[in-house]
């Protein structure tokens, strides 16, 4: 694929009356990216998604999809787009095959390829068994899958999924995540959600939006770096006293959490700490990085004080 980004968003602004729902957002999406779009309720996630999919016109700004301006030539731009809104756009009085066939015609899939596209989408979304069922009679989870099938039917370059795993059971969530990861290899995907582990599980880039502004954008590697706080959770069977721990040069500071449970801040490599524990026969049971999770970053950024340098925030 070319180096040209699949989606290029420049200074996107959207007002509802006087209320500014999306305020000057710019970002890009490259092929093979799975971008997690995070934000609290009412942050402007869905509004952004609706603008990207052509359902809403932006007040200002530019959206370029696969090299085509969405506002100048909407038809060409939309043909490279698959969109699953918050509520799947289903016709309850049609059966799955009829509905997907209709979507295929809307997406201008040539008549002789429709059968094939339908079969592939159904197989990917696990819908093969319900082909002839009425959509209105399907469970919420299956309806969601039909929604996803509709979005990937024409194998678009860009897939926009607005909270795709809402209402699914844990097994279905895992299947959908696998599907998204699978699709991510050949498409660009934007995924909006407020389920944080989902982003950590499937995305390679993350963006947090709050009150219409982008407050955080990073790839997953950068996120992991940011998560390294130099703090570790330590559980020892034959624990030394807290004073003993604090006397060790490697350990900057140790706090006791329970009889055997410590939080230590170290100045150096974590391997050293592990070696110490073994040599001193402390009975090492658990040594985990006390990571600043995405959740912490999310909470910090969205709880009002957006300018705080998150790296120095207390993760505990």
């Amino acid at each position, binding site marked *: 694929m070319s180096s040209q980004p699949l989606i290029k968003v420049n200074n996107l602004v959207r007002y509802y009356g006087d209320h500014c729902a999306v305020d000057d957002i710019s970002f890009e999406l490259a092929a093979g990216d799975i971008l997690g779009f995070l934000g609290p309720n009412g942050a402007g996630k869905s509004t952004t998604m609706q603008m990207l*999919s052509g359902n809403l016109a932006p007040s200002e700004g530019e959206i370029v999809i696969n090299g085509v301006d969405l506002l100048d030539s909407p038809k060409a731009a*939309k043909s490279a787009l698959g969109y699953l809104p918050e*509520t799947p756009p289903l*016709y309850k009085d049609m059966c799955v095959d009829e509905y997907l066939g209709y979507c295929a015609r*809307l997406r201008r899939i040539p008549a002789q390829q429709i059968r094939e596209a339908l079969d592939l989408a159904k197989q990917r979304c696990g819908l093969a068994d319900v082909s002839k069922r009425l959509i209105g009679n399907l469970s919420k989870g299956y309806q969601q899958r039909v929604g996803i099938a509709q979005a990937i039917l024409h194998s678009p370059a860009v897939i926009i999924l607005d909270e795709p795993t809402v209402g699914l059971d844990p097994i279905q969530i895992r299947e959908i995540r696998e599907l998204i990861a699978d699709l991510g290899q050949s498409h660009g995907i934007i995924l909006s959600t407020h389920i944080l582990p989902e982003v950590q599980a499937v995305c390679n880039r993350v963006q947090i939006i709050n009150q219409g502004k982008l407050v955080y954008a990073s790839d997953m590697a950068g996120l992991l770096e940011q998560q390294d706080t130099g703090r570790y959770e330590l559980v020892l069977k034959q624990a030394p006293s807290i004073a003993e721990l604090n006397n060790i040069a490697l350990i900057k500071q140790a706090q006791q959490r329970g009889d055997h449970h410590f939080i230590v801040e170290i100045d150096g490599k974590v391997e050293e700490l592990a070696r110490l524990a073994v040599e001193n026969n402390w009975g090492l049971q658990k040594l985990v990085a006390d990571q600043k999770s995405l959740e912490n970053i999310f909470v910090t950024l969205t709880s009002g004080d957006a300018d705080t340098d998150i790296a120095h925030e207390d993760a505990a």
Partner: protein
Amino acid sequence: MIKAIALRELRSMFLSPLAWTVLAVTQLILAWSFFTQIDFFFTIQSELATAPNAPGVTDLVVMPTYEVASLILLMVTPLLTMRLISEERRNGSIALLLSSPVSMTQIVLGKYLGILLFMLSFIAMISLMPLSLLMGTQLDLGKIAAGMLALTLLLAAFSSAGLFLSSLTDNPIIAAISTFGLLLLLWIISRNTGDTSDVFNHLSLLTHYTPMLRGLVNTGDVAYFLIFIATFLVLTIRQMDSRRLQG
């Protein structure tokens, strides 16, 4: 593309019990009215036979049937058009159309064509009743053709107004009531003014419909209906576009 949207619309019409109910009720009422017209014709038949230049069965039975049909359809068309766009808005399926590579014009024309095809089946069913008289008598087929054309144009006009009002709201009931109100207003607007140069007479659907039922197909009347339809279709497209801007 327009065809795909229209056919889906037509299918969903026939999948809903509403359309079948409307068809059945309309047909029942019309059948009763048709029957009474024939009955009336038989009672005065002997007098007609002696009168010079007497009206024939086409004038006394067929055309009144079309007149009754137009009144019933004025009442039921809003029920058929109310869901066209408002329901798609309400359950979110409009997003599928808006994110697909189709233009707003194609969406609106597709929807309109869908309802129009349904209306044609209506007209076919209604016309079968008077045409059944052909088995026993001679009819003025030219007049009947004019009646069918009149009803087609009228229903096409009703549908375009219904489509527009359906695009204004997310609530089908509100769309239905406002469509009914608008159509009724345009129907009766000429009633109280006898003056033919009156602007209200020109606006009225009735003044352009009744001449055709007498077999008089006037270019002005046909143009009225075509302009009426085009106006509401353009308004619908504009409305859909501006909804994207307002959100």
